[in-house]
């Protein structure tokens, strides 16, 4: 699977080159401007970044589970690299959300349940990356990191339902049956999400390739020492 992802990297890159301009056109030209102002267009990439964040954190959990079952280092590499991307996209989500909140709510940050649970998610996976960075060849620590990542994934449904279950001022646009926005805006949001998915997979392919090269260098150094 990991080899297939590295091989698909180029295709994902080309797909992004086509889809990203389309998503920008949809967000800036096709979607109507809301009465609140032009800043509302931040929302399209905010949702797309959040989607990629969820996707990669989901992949961390799946790869961690595979690592616990198969004890294959490749799955740990996949989990760690997906974790990096998850943190990158959750960071972008938080920054974009803050840039939207300033003109909309007149504050950069508020202790809203959706925002707090997202920040907790970010802290969980930053901690996960720190554990992985300290693990090196410590198998026990790697197994602990895998369990930590799987448990941390439980925060995602909490993030999603926080705006429904608790009193929240965060817009809750993704609801079953009712999108809560005009059709054109919904299409622009879907276009951004579709464009971000291959872009994220392209970056993951790039990151996995670096990891594979690192392993190759290590192996070659070892064989040079022993010959």
């Amino acid at each position, binding site marked *: 699977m990991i080899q297939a992802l590295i091989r698909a990297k180029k295709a994902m890159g080309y797909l992004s080159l086509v889809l990203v301009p389309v998503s920008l056109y949809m967000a800036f030209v096709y979607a109507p401007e809301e009465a609140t102002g*032009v*800043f509302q*267009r*931040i929302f399209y*990439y*905010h949702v797309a*970044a959040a989607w990629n964040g969820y996707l990669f954190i989901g992949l961390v959990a799946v790869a961690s589970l595979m690592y616990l079952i198969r004890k294959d280092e490749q799955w740990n590499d996949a989990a760690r690299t997906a974790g990096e991307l998850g943190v*990158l996209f959750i*960071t*972008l989500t938080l*920054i*974009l959300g803050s*840039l*939207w909140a*300033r*003109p909309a709510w007149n504050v950069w940050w508020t202790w809203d349940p959706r925002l707090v649970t997202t920040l907790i998610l970010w802290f969980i996976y930053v901690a996960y990356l720190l554990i992985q960075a300290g693990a090196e060849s410590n198998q026990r620590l790697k197994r602990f990191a895998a369990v930590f990542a799987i448990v941390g994934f439980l925060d995602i449904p909490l993030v999603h339902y926080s705006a429904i279950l608790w009193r929240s001022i965060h817009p809750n646009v993704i609801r079953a049956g009712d999108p809560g926005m005009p059709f054109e805006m919904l299409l622009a949001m879907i276009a951004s999400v579709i464009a971000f998915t291959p*872009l994220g997979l*392209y*970056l993951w392919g*790039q*990151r996995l*390739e*670096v990891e594979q*090269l*690192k392993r*190759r*260098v290590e192996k*070659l*150094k070892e*064989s*040079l020492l022993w*010959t």
Partner: protein
Amino acid sequence: MTYLFAAYTIVWIGIFAYSYSLGQQAKRLAAQVETLEAALKSQGEAASSKSKAAGRTGRA
């Protein structure tokens, strides 16, 4: 408008910077792989010629 511009700029700078740093790392590592493979090959060749020479001296 400022917030919108800042938001999209941050996204693209973030993604390009990450992708560029990965590309640079891959390039550096690929060069290292090439150097190590060449070193391993020359070490192997040196070892085989040494054993051949030792074999000839043994027979003599």
